[in-house]
């Protein structure tokens, strides 16, 4: 009876107090990790003479470069706001160059290009830190992974890990 009444009272439509990523989680490290993969893969590519391995390197590096570009774009399109551009007038230029540099890394095996990409991501990282950084856009880890002391998490995998740690040496 009450359910029916509630069903009648309930609105028919939703209005979105909208946010593209409701959690508001952003971190340029996501781009940086993919870009570091590109850097390391290029190193391995250049050190190897195994043609099959080099082909695989190329394939994986192209995937990683594409992901790097995606994560740069998320920072650019979703995280940065007009007030951030006021603070950093070259923000658009840096993001644009970083996106282009990711494309450049996708098509070359030149380690210098991969380093340029890392440097540009670090400039995005700097702007992110200066506009709120991890405090504003990341969850705070109460107990960093690998920190000493007994883990307090109650998840299954963590308690297994805790049990393993608790074994006498």
């Amino acid at each position: 009876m009450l359910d029916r009444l509630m069903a009648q009272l309930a609105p028919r439509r939703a209005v979105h107090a909208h946010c593209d990523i409701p959690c508001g989680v952003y971190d340029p490290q996501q781009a940086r990790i993919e870009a570091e993969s590109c850097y390391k893969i290029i190193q391995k590519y250049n050190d190897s003479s195994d043609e099959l391995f080099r082909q695989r390197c190329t394939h994986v590096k192209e995937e990683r470069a594409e992901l790097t570009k995606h994560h740069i774009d998320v920072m650019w399109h979703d995280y940065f706001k007009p007030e951030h551009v006021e603070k950093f007038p070259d923000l658009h230029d840096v993001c644009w160059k970083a996106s282009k540099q990711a494309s450049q890394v996708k098509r070359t095996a030149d380690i210098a290009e991969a380093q340029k990409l890392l440097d540009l991501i670090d400039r995005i990282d700097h702007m992110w830190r200066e506009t709120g950084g991890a405090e504003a856009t990341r969850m705070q880890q109460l107990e960093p992974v690998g920190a000493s002391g007994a883990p307090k998490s109650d998840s299954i995998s963590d308690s297994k890990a805790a049990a393993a740690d608790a074994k006498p040496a």
Partner: protein
Amino acid sequence: MVAPLVKAAVALAGLLAVGRFAFPGALRLARSWPERVAVTGHSMAPRLLPGDWLLVDASGGTPRPVAGELVVVPDPRRSDRLLVKRVSAVERGQLLLRGDAPDASTDSRTFGAVDPGTVLGRPWFRYWPPRRIGRVG
């Protein structure tokens, strides 16, 4: 079975309005009763929260919304979806929309200004949950 329930619900909501705002409020409530919406998302926190049920005065864009008012508009990027935002400023006849919680909001900073002609209405009353019943704006 269903029709009497609707009547009961309308009467209940009407009584609430009469109790709180006397007769003109009840009239307004009766008029906007068909335009009910449920809030999802956190961009309007703490004034509007997910799960709030609102009555919308579906007067469209007239009179022109002014800065500070809540509006319901179709998402400029996906017209099948409705947004609720606050007008932060009116520039050259266009509305700049902002969430009350700017860090958790995608609004005019991302999709630009919106035409006042696209405004569907203004939320004015929250009728659910019971603890939060009252005017919004």
